[in-house]
Structure formats: C-alpha cells, structure tokens
C-alpha cells in the first residue's frame, strides 16, 4: 500500500511538473526554430532589399515594410473600433444591465468569440466588402477597413470577457461608498469602478490586440493582399497585405530552404516578437497594479 503510493507519486509529480514547464519549453523551442529558419535571411537578402517597399518574392524583391505597415494599419483600425465598443459592452454588462440581461449577454458575446475566423472571412467577402465599397464609394471593398471591422469582431469578445471580469471583481464597497457620497451611477462608473479595474481592462485590450495582429484567415480573404505602403491619408480604405496573410498564402508552395522560405520565417519571427511585446506589456500592467493594491492593503 505504502510503496504503491510512493510509486505513483514518483511518476505523477514529475509529470505534473513537466506539463507545468512544458509551456516555457514549447515557447523556447518555437523561438529557437524561428531563429534557426529565419536568421539565414540576414545573410541571403541585403538589408536594403529588406527595408525596400516592394514585396514580390518570385523575383527576389523582399521588402518587408509594406507587410509590416499593412499589419499595423489593420490592427490600428481594429483597435479603434474594438476598444470603445468592447469597454462599453463590458461596462454595460457589469454595471448597468439588469441581472437577466447580463446572464444572456455574456455567454452570447463569448459565442461570438468562438466563431471561426474563416466564417467571418466568408461573411466579409460576400457581404461586408461589397457593402463598404458602395457605402464609402471606394474602388474596391477589399481594403484595410474591411479587415479592421472583421478583426474587431475577433477582438471584442476577448476585451469584453476580460474587462467584465475585472469590473466584476471591483469590491462592492467601492460602488456603495461612491453612491453614498452622492455620485450618480455614471460618475461612479467613470470615476471609481473603471479606474479601479483599469489593469484588468488594459489586459483585455492588449489580449484583444494580440489576437488581431495574429489573425490570418479573415484578413487574407478581405484585405485584398496588395503589398502597397499604407502611407497615404486614405490608406485605411485601400487594399493592404498583412504579414500573417503573406505567410499563409506563400508558405504552402515555397521550396524548402530557399531564400523565400527563410524570409517567410523571418516574418514569423517579427510577428512573434511583436505579440511577445504585447503580452509582456499586458502582464506588466497587471503586475504594477498588483503591487499597488498590495501597498494599499498593507
């Protein structure tokens, strides 16, 4: 009896430990793999080529700037749409909505988050893009703004879910105190609850943006994939090509270990570093907030 417990412990304890550490191991392995496959780019493609503005890999034009710009403008547009809507939805669900509405709304928003992005892409190509073209009188609806709108639908559920949890965990005494001091409900939300939940809301925003920048399928279907520099004043309404769509569209047919192959991994490396940065920023805000609350409590 005694020895059998010891045996299972001998196996299970390290297994649990390994699965705990495996996340770190996987991230490191992926990073190593990206470095190994992506870094040869630097030896094979000249720096001036990499920072040029022309992406046409079958003729060895490897300018990354249009792709980087495309990803940034789509993400920026999606953030401009998703952040206000997401935070407002979270505030409504957590603070304003009656209990019955709340119990319906949150699961529905989370179902929205579960819609596969390829389905969103279909809706985008068949309904959204033609509508945008007619409504805004654009040459084509396959544009950065179409991608931004679709991606905001990807980001909003994340933002709502995390921000609502944060608002919900603000102690009830905060609201009671504000209301007792004569604040209106709006003043309570704007001046007390939302600032108190600031770090959670920011984390939600960061995670939402992280999802947007890594999203591929919907973007590839609706942004037109034209590798132009998004530097004109109306670039948000013109076609762009994102980094993720480039990798997805070209990886399938690229010859192993060719220059093009390495450049695609290099783009993956850039994407990885960007989303790593966003995630570090998100956890940093959480960490700062925790230290602050610990200070208040002590």
């Amino acid at each position, binding site marked *: 009896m005694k020895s059998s417990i010891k045996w299972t412990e*001998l*196996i299970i*304890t*390290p*297994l649990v430990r*390994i699965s705990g550490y495996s996340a770190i191991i996987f991230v490191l392995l992926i990073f190593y793999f990206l470095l190994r496959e992506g870094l040869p780019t630097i030896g094979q493609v000249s720096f001036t080529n990499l920072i040029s*503005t*022309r*992406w*046409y*890999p*079958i*003729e060895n*034009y490897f300018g990354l700037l*249009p792709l980087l710009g495309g990803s940034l403008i789509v993400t920026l547009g999606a953030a401009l749409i998703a952040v206000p809507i997401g935070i407002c939805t979270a505030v409504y669900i957590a603070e304003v909505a009656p209990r019955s509405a709340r119990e319906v709304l949150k699961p529905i928003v989370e179902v929205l988050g579960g819609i596969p992005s390829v389905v969103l892409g279909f809706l985008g*190509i*068949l309904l959204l*893009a*033609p509508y945008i*073209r007619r409504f805004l009188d654009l*040459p*084509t*609806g*396959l544009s950065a703004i179409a991608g931004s709108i679709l991606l905001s639908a990807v980001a909003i559920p994340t933002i709502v879910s995390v921000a609502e949890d944060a608002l919900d965990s603000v102690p009830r005494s905060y609201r009671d105190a504000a209301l007792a001091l004569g604040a209106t409900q709006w003043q309570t939300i704007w001046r007390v609850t939302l600032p108190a939940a600031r770090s959670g809301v920011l984390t939600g925003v960061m995670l939402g943006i992280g999802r947007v920048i890594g999203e591929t399928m919907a973007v*590839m*279907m609706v942004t*037109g*994939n*034209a*590798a*132009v520099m998004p530097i004109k004043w109306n670039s948000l309404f*013109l*076609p762009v*090509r994102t980094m993720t769509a480039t990798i997805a*569209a*070209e990886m*399938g*047919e*690229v*010859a192993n270990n060719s220059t093009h192959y390495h450049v695609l991994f290099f783009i993956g490396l850039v994407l990885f570093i960007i989303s790593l940065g966003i995630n570090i920023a998100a956890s940093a805000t959480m960490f700062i907030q925790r230290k602050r609350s610990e200070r208040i409590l002590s």
Partner: protein
Amino acid sequence: MKRAWFITAALILFLLSSCRQGADSTKSGSSNSQTQAIVNKGSDTLVNLALAWAEKYHKLDPNIDISVTGGGSGTGIAALINKTVDIANASRQIKPEELQQAKTNGVNPMEYIVARDAIAIVVNTSNSVNHLTIQQLSDIYSGKINNWKQVGGEDRIIVRLSRETNSGTHVFFLENVIRLGDSKNKTLFSSDTLLLPSSEGITAETRDNPNAIGYDGLGYVTPEVKVVAVGRSDSGPFVMPSADSVNNRQYPIARDLYMYTDGQPTGRILEYINWIQTQEAQNIVTQLGFVPIKSP
C-alpha cells in the same frame, strides 16, 4: 527526486522509440508483390492534373503505382536527362540546350501534348468593354493604364485582380501577358494589384465590383462574370476563349502542356501515355480547369 526524473525520461524515450518502430514497420509493409512504378516529375502547373490522372489510373490498374512530384518544368526535364524519372511534365517546350544536353547523355526526349491551358480575362457584367489587346492588358496590369475610359469604357478606376504569386497561372500571366512573352522584359505587376488566394475570390469580387478586372484559368470561369475577347494587335481579330479557339490556336493567351519520355516508351509507360489521350482522362482535364486536347 533524481530517480523520478530518470523514470520519466526513460518513459518518454520508450514512447518515442516505439513510435519510430511503428513508422518503420508500416513503410516496409507496403512494398509487396509485383507493383510497378512510374516516376513522374515536373511542372507545378501540371502537378494537380498529373496527380488526378495518377489516382484514377491506379484505380483502373492497382498494379501500377505512379508517383507525382512538382518542382517546375526545368526540374522535371533535368530529371529526365539524368534518367531519374520515366515521365517529365512541362508547361513549356523543351529548350534547344536541354535537347543538346539530353543527346549527349544518351536520352532522346519524346514529346506529347497532354492538355492545354488558357487564361480568360473577366470583368463585371456591367462593364461596357468587350475586347482588349495583349498590349492593353500588359499596360493595365503594370499600372500604365488606370482608368477604364483609356480602353474605351466608362470613367472608372481599374481594380486589378490576380491570383497569388505561387499560382502557375500567375507566372504564366506575368511572362506571356505583362512581359508580352519577352524573356528580357522585366516589367512587374503593379504593386496595388490585389492578390486573391482563390479563383472563388476573383469571381466574387469581379461579380460585385464594376471596377474590377481579373484573370483565371478558362475552366474556372462562371456565368456570373463577363469574359473579354482578346486580340494580338489593335486590328484584331479579337477572340473569345473556348476549347475550340484554344485548340485551333486563335486565342492568344494559351499554352500547351507537355509530357516527355526517354525515347519511344514501351510497356506500362506507353499504356499510361495512351490512356491520357483517351476521353476518360481528358474529362479530368476539364474538371481541373484546363482545356482538353480533343473536344468532347
């Protein structure tokens, strides 16, 4: 503690090694009895068609295994010259220097036209432009012509649609339309050309957008879009793409697709090449969006 690590590591190693064994045993199990192999390599344009033929033929005669790989027409012909393949696929004719190389290596390439490939130019049904020359198409796609009124249409911006760069159709269009078939011409697609990942994407956007112009393999064209007649020069004649106009070489944006063998083939290779010329095999050509060598 150390012992625990040891045991887990041993377990993982054991699992990994058993996986390895499993993979090996399945491999050795498949090569039984007297299956005969045909090795087929070459053009990426042809690779899907060649795969479809190979699968169908394997069903008709399970003793023949045909392995198909891509890599490009040049790769396929090089492999034929080095005698590592039985059949090379090519989307262009063999070059004189390749033929010379083959002769010195004792290889005598035999040429078979197995299918044809034509590119249709499509626009929105409301577009009043009915015909374009190759030169006009080149100017549109390289960014020199930006408005439909410059080619006789309404005053609208032209939105250029293209397949992704990894598509064989993209490269064929670049070489034969944008660069007018001149290998020294280094003109590129205008950088604001929309690269769509699928034929469906091109059809959907052309159907909805009166500004759009697109191209695609003839077999992928649907009735929802308008096909434009193409002429070699301003004086015409302007020809609509069809199996007939491609087969009698009137339609300008078309090419033959080839298979090459070493010398007069015999046995299983001859049977396979003969089967490809049959109606049954040519029906697959139509299904994959190419033009069959004989009209049904």
